C-alpha cells in the first residue's frame, strides 16, 4: 500500500555504542548532530541505552530528542562487519537545539550502505573504454593524470589545464580538502583557468562587500533572535537555511526571545517582538510562514528582477533624508573621502528626493510607501533615541542577480549607513548555501575590476575550444553552470573527439600507451580530457575519460564553519568509504607527489618544488598545514578585523573533538593577555578589514537596463514570461543523495516549474501537466505546479534536479566587474508538452507549498 517500505521500529544504541559528533552535511545553518555506531545484533534496551532516555515511554512533543525512520541505517566497515548507524540532531548544539530539517534528517539514510538506498557510490577509479567504463588501479589513474598534466604544462602552458572545484565546507569537504586543492592547483599547477563549483570563474560571490572591508560572515545566529528587524533579501531562509529561520528568526517573530533582548540591549532601550522584511519577487514560504505567525509585522517587497540595488539605494536615501544615521559612527568608523562618492552616486543627493523615488518606483516596481516602510523598520531610531537593530541577510537572489558587485555593495552600504553592524541584533551578510571551510594559497585574481580583476570565465574558455584537461571535483556543471545546454553540447563533442582519436583497436589500458595517444590527440584535435572526482557518477562524469571515487561525509574527518556563526567544528569520521574511494585531499596529494616525482626525474627542480609539502599522512596534518596560511593571530579583541575570517590557527582536530558540538567561532585569536585560543562572536565592533580600519564606500552605477543577453527577449512575444530559479526545501543541490531516497524522489520526481494560476489558465495547463520551457539559449522539460508564489508573468523553476536543469535557459551573461553569472533572470516561452507523467503524478503532491492556512 505504501509507496515504499516503511519502518515500524528502530534498533536501540547500547550504552557502549561508539559516539562521534558531527555537523549536518548540507546547508549553511550547520546543525549539530550526534552519531552512534554499534554492531548489528548488539542493541541496547529501552531503559539502558546510549541516548540516556527512557524509550519505553511515548516521548512528548518538542522534547529535543528525535530518532526517526530516516535517522538510522546499516553500514559495513572495511572489516566486513555490519553496524547500525544512528545520526540524531544534537540538543546541546546552540545552532539547532535538537531541531533539524527535512534535508538533515536524512543524514543517516544517505550514508553509504550496500544494503540500503545508496549502493551506487563510486568505488574504484574508472577509465572510459568506448561506451563504458572499466576499473583501473589508483597507481595507473594517478600516473595518467600526472603525466598528462606535466605534458600539458610543458607543451601548452599551465593555462591549458582548467579546473572546477568546490571552495566550500560541509558535503564531506572542509579546510582539509580545500587546502589540498589549493596546493595542487594554485601553488603547483598555477593555472589561471580556475573555477568554483557553482560558477564559471574563480571569484568571490561578494567582492562588493569584501572590498568595503566587511566580510560577508559577520553576524552570530543569536542576532537573528535579538534583531528588532530581520531582512531576508533574496534569501529564502525557511526553505534554504531552514533552522536559521525556524530556531532563530521565528522565535523572534513570536516574541519568544524578549528576555534575551532585554538582557542584551542597552539600559532603558525598548525591546519588542521582531519584524521581518522579505525582499523577494516570490511570495515563498519564508513570507507566508511569517505572515501566519505575525501578519502585521511582516513586510514583503517584490522588486522587478535585477533591480535590487536601485531599491537598496532608494531606501538608503530615505534613511538619509530622515536623518536615520549616526554621524559620529560614520565619521569615526568609515572613510569620509569615499563617502562623498557614495553620496553622489548611490544616494544621488543632487537629485530631489521625489524625483529619485519616482524613478526608483518605475525601475523596481516597488511603491514609495513600501520603500518608506522598509527604511523606517531598518533604520528609524527607537523611542528614547536608541539606534535600531537590524540584521540583513542576503543570498543568491542578490549574489546571482544582474550586476553582482553593485547589488552586494548597495546592501552592505545600506547597513553601514544605518550603523547596523557590530552590535547585538545587527549585521549584514550572507545566508550562505553550503557551509564554509576555505583555506588556500592566494588566488591569481585578487578581486573585482577595482582590485586586480576580473577573473577569467573558464566556461567561455572551454566552449571556445581552449584547454586540454578539465578536472571537475564534487560538482556537476552539466546541470549547474549557466547556459548549460550549450556548455554540455560543446564539452560532449570535445570529449568524444578525444575518445575517437585514441580509440583504435580499443582504448589502451596501459597508462603509457594511453598517455601517448591522448598527447597525440592534444596535438591534432581540440579533444578535451575530462577528469571527474566525485562520490557518485554524474552527468558530466558520463563524458569524462577518468572518474576518481571520493570519500563522502563521515568517511574522513573534516572541519568546516557554518555561515551564521562561523562556528568551527569537527565532522568526524565514523565509517569507511566504499571500496577504494579516498578523501579528496588524499587524491590531490597523490597527484601532486607524482608530479613532483616526474619533474624531479626530468631534472626540473623549480617545477618539482612547486609540488612540495603535499605528502600529508593524515587529515589533521592537512588541517594544520593549511592553518599556517593565516599568519599571526596573537591579537587583542579590538583587532579581530585584521584576521582572516576563517582563521583557525592554533586549533587542532583534538581540540575540536573535545569541543564537540560547542565548537569555536572563527576568526580564532590567541589572546595576548591569557595566551588562550578565543573565538569571535560577532565581527567589526571596533574596526573594518581595511588598512586604516575604516569602511570603504563605493558609488554604485545608475540603472542602464538589462544586458544584451536578456534585453533581446524583452518585448518579444515568443518569450512572454520572466523566469527565475531557486531551490526546493526538500532536496539538496543536484539531489546526489536525494535521487536515491524514496522520501525525496517520490515527492520531487521531476524538474519542475511553479506557475501562477492566471498564467496556468492562460496557457491551458494544470498542476501535474508537463511543459517545455524554452528560449534561444535552450529548453527544458518540466512538471508544472500551480501556486501564487510568483506574480502573473513570472515563472519559477527549480535550478536543477537529478533529471534535468533549468540552467539550459540561463544566459551566458556575467557581471563584467566580477564574472558572476545572472542565474536568476531571463525570459522564456512555455508550451504544453504531450505525454503525461503518470508515475510522477501518482506520487508527487500538487498542493501549493506556500499556503499554510
Amino acid at each position, binding site marked *: 500500500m505504501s*509507496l515504499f517500505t516503511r519502518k515500524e*521500529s528502530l534498533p536501540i544504541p547500547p550504552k557502549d555504542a561508539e559516539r562521534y559528533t558531527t555537523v549536518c552535511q548540507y546547508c549553511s545553518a550547520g546543525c549539530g548532530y550526534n552519531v552512534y555506531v554499534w554492531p548489528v545484533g548488539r542493541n541496547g534496551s529501552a531503559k539502558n541505552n546510549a541516548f540516556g532516555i527512557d524509550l519505553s515511554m511515548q516521548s512528548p512533543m518538542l522534547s529535543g530528542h528525535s530518532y*526517526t525512520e530516516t535517522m538510522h541505517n546499516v553500514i559495513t566497515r572495511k572489516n566486513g562487519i555490519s553496524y547500525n548507524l544512528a545520526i540524531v540532531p544534537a540538543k546541546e548544539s546552540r545552532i539547532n537545539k535538537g531541531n533539524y*530539517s*527535512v534535508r538533515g534528517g536524512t543524514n543517516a539514510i544517505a550514508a553509504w550502505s550496500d544494503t540500503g538506498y545508496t549502493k551506487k557510490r563510486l568505488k574504484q577509479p574508472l577509465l572510459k573504454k568506448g561506451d563504458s567504463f572499466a576499473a583501473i588501479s589508483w597507481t595507473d589513474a594517478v600516473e595518467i593524470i600526472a603525466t598528462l598534466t606535466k605534458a600539458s604544462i610543458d607543451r601548452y602552458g599551465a593555462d591549458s589545464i582548467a579546473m572546477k572545484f568546490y571552495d566550500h565546507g560541509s558535503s564531506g569537504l572542509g579546510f582539509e580538502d580545500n587546502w589540498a586543492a589549493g596546493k595542487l592547483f594554485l601553488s603547483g599547477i598555477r593555472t589561471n583557468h580556475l573555477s568554483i563549483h557553482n560558477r564559471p570563474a574563480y571569484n568571490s560571490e561578494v567582492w562588493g562587500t569584501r572590498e568595503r572591508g566587511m566580510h560577508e560572515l559577520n553576524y552570530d545566529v543569536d542576532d537573528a533572535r535579538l534583531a528588532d528587524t530581520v531582512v531576508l533579501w533574496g534569501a529564502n531562509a*525557511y526553505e534554504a537555511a531552514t533552522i536559521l529561520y525556524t530556531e532563530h528568526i521565528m522565535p523572534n517573530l513570536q516574541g*519568544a526571545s524578549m528576555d534575551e533582548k532585554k538582557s542584551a540591549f542597552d539600559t532603558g532601550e525598548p525591546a519588542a517582538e521582531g519584524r521581518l522584511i522579505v525582499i523577494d519577487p516570490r511570495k515563498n514560504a519564508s513570507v507566508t510562514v511569517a505572515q501566519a505567525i505575525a501578519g502585521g509585522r511582516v513586510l514583503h517587497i517584490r522588486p522587478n528582477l535585477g533591480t535590487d540595488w536601485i531599491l537598496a539605494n532608494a531606501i538608503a536615501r530615505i534613511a538619509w533624508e530622515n536623518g536615520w544615521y549616526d554621524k559620529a559612527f560614520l565619521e569615526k568608523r568609515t572613510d569620509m573621502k569615499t563617502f562623498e562618492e557614495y553620496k553622489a552616486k548611490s544616494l544621488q543627493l543632487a537629485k530631489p528626493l521625489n524625483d529619485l523615488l519616482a524613478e526608483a518606483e518605475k525601475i523596481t516596481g516597488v511603491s514609495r510607501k513600501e520603500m518608506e516602510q522598509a527604511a523606517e523598520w531598518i533604520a528609524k531610531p527607537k523611542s528614547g533615541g536608541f539606534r535600531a537593530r537590524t540584521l540583513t541577510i542576503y543570498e543568491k537572489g542578490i549574489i546571482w542577480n544582474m550586476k553582482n558587485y553593485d547589488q552586494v555593495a548597495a546592501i552592505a552600504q545600506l547597513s553601514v549607513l544605518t550603523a547596523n553592524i557590530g552590535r547585538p541584533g545587527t549585521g549584514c551578510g550572507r545566508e550562505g548555501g553550503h557551509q564554509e571551510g576555505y583555506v588556500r594559497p592566494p588566488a591569481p585574481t585578487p578581486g573585482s575590476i577595482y582590485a586586480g580583476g576580473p577573473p577569467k570565465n573558464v566556461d567561455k574558455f572551454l566552449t571556445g575550444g581552449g584547454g586540454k584537461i578539465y578536472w571537475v571535483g564534487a560538482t556537476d556543471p552539466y546541470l549547474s553552470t549557466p547556459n548549460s545546454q550549450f556548455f554540455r553540447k560543446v564539452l560532449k563533442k570535445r570529449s568524444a573527439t578525444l575518445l575517437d582519436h585514441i580509440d583504435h583497436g580499443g582504448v589502451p589500458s596501459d597508462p603509457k600507451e594511453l598517455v601517448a595517444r591522448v598527447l597525440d590527440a592534444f596535438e591534432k584535435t581540440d579533444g578535451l580530457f575530462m577528469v571527474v572526482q566525485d562520490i557518485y557518477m554524474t552527468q558530466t562524469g558520463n563524458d569524462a575519460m577518468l572518474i576518481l571515487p571520493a570519500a563522502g561525509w563521515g568517511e574522513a574527518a573534516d572541519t568546516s564553519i557554518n555561515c551564521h556563526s562561523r562556528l568551527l567544528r569537527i565532522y568526524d569520521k565514523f565509517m569507511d568509504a566504499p571500496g577504494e574511494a579516498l578523501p579528496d585531499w588524499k587524491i590531490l596529494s597523490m597527484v601532486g607527489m607524482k608530479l613532483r616525482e616526474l619533474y624531479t626525474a626530468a631534472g626540473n627542480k623549480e617545477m618539482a618544488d612547486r609540488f612540495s609539502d603535499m605528502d600529508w599522512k593524515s587529515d589533521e596534518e592537512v588541517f594544520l598545514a593549511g592553518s599556517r596560511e593565516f599568519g599571526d593571530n596573537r591579537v587583542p579583541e579590538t583587532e579581530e578585523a585584521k584576521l582572516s575570517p576563517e582563521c583557525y590557527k592554533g586549533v587542532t582536530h583534538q581540540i575540536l573533538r573535545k569541543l564537540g558540538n560547542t565548537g569555536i567561532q572563527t576568526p580564532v585569536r590567541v589572546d595576548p593577555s591569557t595566551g588562550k585560543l578565543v573565538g569571535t562572536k560577532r565581527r567589526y565592533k571596533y574596526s573594518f578589514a581595511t588598512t586604516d580600519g575604516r569602511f570603504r564606500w563605493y558609488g554604485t552605477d545608475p540603472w542602464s537596463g538589462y544586458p544584451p543577453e536578456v534585453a533581446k527577449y524583452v518585448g518579444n512575444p515568443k518569450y512572454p514570461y520572466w523566469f527565475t530559479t531557486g531551490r526546493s526545501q526538500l532536496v539538496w543541490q543536484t539531489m546526489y543523495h536525494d535521487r536515491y531516497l524514496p522520501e525525496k524522489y517520490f515527492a520531487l520526481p521531476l524538474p519542475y516549474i511553479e506557475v501562477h494560476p492566471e498564467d496556468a489558465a492562460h496557457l491551458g495547463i494544470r498542476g501535474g501537466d508537463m511543459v517545455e520551457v524554452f528560449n534561444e539559449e535552450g529548453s527544458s522539460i518540466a512538471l508544472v505546479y500551480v501556486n501564487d508564489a510568483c506574480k502573473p508573468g513570472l515563472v519559477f523553476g527549480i535550478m536543477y534536479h537529478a533529471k534535468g536543469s533549468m540552467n539550459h535557459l540561463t544566459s551566458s551573461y556575467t557581471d563584467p566587474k566580477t564574472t558572476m553569472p545572472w542565474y536568476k533572470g531571463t525570459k522564456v516561452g512555455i508550451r504544453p508538452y504531450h505525454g503525461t507523467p503518470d508515475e510522477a503524478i501518482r506520487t508527487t503532491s500538487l*498542493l501549493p507549498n506556500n499556503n499554510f492556512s
Partner: protein
Amino acid sequence: MSPLNRREFLQTSSASLALAVLGLSGKADGAAANKYPSIRIGNIRDLKTGEPVQFNYPDKSSPCNVVMLNGNAVGGIGPFSNVVAFSALCPHMGCPVNYSNGRFVCGCHYSMFDAAKNGQTYQGLASQWLAQVSLRLDKASGNIYAEGIEGLVYGRIGNLNIS
C-alpha cells in the same frame, strides 16, 4: 522549541493537543506485544468529506485521524478509495498535526503532509513522512477497522513497544 511555540499550540490546536497529552501515560489497550490490534474506529457512513475524526491507535498514547478526502488516495479505502488515516503526531518533533484542505499541517514548524499521497512531506521540516494507518472496511456494516501502521509513530522506538 521556544516556550511560546508551545503556548501558541495550546491556543491554536487545543483539541488535538489535549488528545496527545491525555494519551501520554496510556497503556496499550488491546495491543498484544508485536502484533497490531484490529480496532473499530468508526463507520464510513458517519464520515463527512474533509472532516477528520480522531481515534487512538495502536494504543492510548498514539492519537490518529481518519478522514474522507475529495478524491482517491494512496492507501485509501471505501468505494472511492478516499478514506485514509494517519498518526496525528508530526514526525518532525511530535507536535499535533491538523487537517485542512487535503493535507495535515503542523503548527510548530509548518510541515505539511499530503493526505492523498501517503502522508508525504511536501513542505516543511519532517524528513520522515507521516505514519499511515492501514484500514479495512467491512462492506456489509460500513465499519472501519485500523489494523496496522506503516511508518514509525513519532516519539517511539517501535510502534508497539510502548509500555
